[in-house]
């Protein structure tokens, strides 16, 4: 699999994402945000961090970086895009994903392990995972409070676009860390090729860290490409 990870000024999870994919035998490269060539990837990752220092609104300035135009056209042609944390914020700013990420309800930056529940296995990012699977995946953000109007929320539910919800260790929807509407931790677009999620699977995918549950999501992506190769 060829993976292009975009580095914006202020990205800080780009190398983690690159490392996780390269250590699994994939060709993972970093692409600078001012470049205009995605280098023919199978998967584009918009990594976590604080692009442009989160000035104005998280992701608002990154959305106008030259490479983002290429990411949008790649996604519109069906290319797979994964936005993690700040990457999710950038995806909502581009309009590839609906809604917005607002400041956490309690105003605090949170950095901790978080359980999320797989809500839908009908996507390249969750295929093979049973609905209801509980994953321990770290979160680290101050603006992760997903918001969408009631009409938009209904559409997300009707089309099965909510892939992950925050939950407690039993899978109950009783541990929402940031006030996100309907406990939403991650959504896909209607075509199901663009995923935005606040939790960091790349921080839970190496043997040296406490949770390896992020590997479940990465394995699902690998399964998707293996089946569609």
């Amino acid at each position, binding site marked *: 699999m060829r993976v292009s990870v975009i580095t914006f000024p202020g990205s800080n999870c780009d190398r983690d994402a690159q490392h996780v994919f390269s250590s699994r035998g994939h060709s993972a490269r970093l692409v600078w945000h001012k470049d205009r060539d995605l280098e023919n990837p199978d998967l584009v990752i918009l990594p976590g961090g604080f692009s442009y220092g989160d000035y*104005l609104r998280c992701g608002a300035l990154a959305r*106008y970086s030259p490479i983002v135009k290429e990411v949008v056209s790649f996604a519109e042609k069906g290319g797979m895009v994964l936005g993690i944390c700040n990457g999710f914020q950038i995806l*909502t700013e581009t309009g590839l994903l609906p809604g*917005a990420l*607002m400041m956490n309800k309690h105003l605090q930056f949170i950095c901790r392990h978080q359980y999320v529940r797989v809500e839908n296995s009908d996507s390249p990012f969750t295929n093979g995972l049973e609905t209801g699977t509980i994953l321990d995946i770290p979160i680290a953000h101050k603006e992760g409070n997903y918001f969408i*109007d009631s009409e938009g929320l209904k559409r997300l539910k009707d089309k099965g676009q909510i892939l992950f919800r925050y939950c407690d260790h039993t899978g109950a929807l009783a541990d929402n860390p940031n*006030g996100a509407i309907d406990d939403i931790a991650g959504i896909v677009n209607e075509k199901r090729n663009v995923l935005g999620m606040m939790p960091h699977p790349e921080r839970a995918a190496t043997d040296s860290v406490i949770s390896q549950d992020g590997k479940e999501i990465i394995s699902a992506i690998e399964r998707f490409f293996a089946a569609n190769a």
Partner: protein
Amino acid sequence: MLKAKIFVELKPSVLDPQGKAVTNTLQGMGFSKVTDTRISKYIEIRFDSDDAELCALETENICKSLLANPNTETYHYELEEL
């Protein structure tokens, strides 16, 4: 030269946790009549032009494309001569 004075505000339907925290503090300070606080952004942009119509159009485009997020925010502005 013209200056655009732009206000970007959260939609009334969107919770403003910062505003809530400020309300709580104000009430704690003894400002007992305070019931609500909303925190907005104020942005000034200067144009090298005296054409009010053109600057209004530019300001409108700037607000729509970058300064305000239509999902959560509204904007309004006024132009001022410098």
